[in-house]
């Protein structure tokens, strides 16, 4: 089965990103395919490499990057939502005249079309939000 994953909230403030991660992990363990993990609304905040969470708690950003690398996942941060909230890669930073970028490893920034496409390509679109 092909799953699309939509994460609507940022790390820590809501459990959405945690539940999405646990679901994604379980789906991969069962041999399913993850078409894309799309981060929208405050979910784009899962894609910043500047977090320093307490050492004795889970590192939400890093574990998405690690899971992404281990399984070649397509982790996509919505460009419009990212622009609103200040998540940028080097290209976006340059294009918008910002003096820094902050995207985390394994994430890429792209348009909402990627979310709609995931809905078309996947057998099930799983939504995690508030």
């Amino acid at each position, binding site marked *: 089965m092909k799953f699309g994953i939509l994460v609507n909230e940022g790390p820590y403030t809501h459990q*959405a990103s945690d539940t999405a991660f646990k*679901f994604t*992990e*379980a789906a991969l363990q069962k041999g399913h395919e993850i078409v894309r993990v799309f981060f929208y609304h405050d979910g784009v905040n899962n894609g910043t490499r500047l977090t320093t969470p307490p050492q004795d708690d889970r590192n939400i950003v890093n574990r998405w990057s690690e899971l992404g690398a281990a399984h070649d996942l397509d982790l996509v941060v919505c460009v419009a939502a990212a622009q609103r909230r200040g998540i940028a890669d080097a290209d976006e930073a340059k294009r918008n005249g910002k003096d820094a970028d902050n995207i985390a490893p394994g994430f890429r920034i792209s348009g909402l079309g990627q979310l709609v496409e995931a809905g078309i390509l996947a057998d*099930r679109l*799983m939504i995690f939000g508030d």
Partner: protein
Amino acid sequence: MLHTINKSPFERNSLDTCLRLAKPGSDLLFVEDGVYAVTVGTAVQDNVKKATEEHVLYALGPDLAARGITEDQVIDGVNIVDYGDFVDLAAKNDRVQAWL
């Protein structure tokens, strides 16, 4: 259809809306703060008990445990599942609706 409910029934009306719009015979999965709805002795217990007659109800074990809810505190008829079962439920149903 698989319906997921992730908010407490005392915080949000999502459970009410889900019950109003779910066709009989649906699978209802309670996750995150949604699991409070399936604990015994609450003001929504009767509604949830009634729902077990029309639908099949599930609650995510890890979320129950995180909130200190033991098996005997869960309403009779609600099945306790893990993340793997969550995946299976999503695969088994033709469509999924997340009542945020």
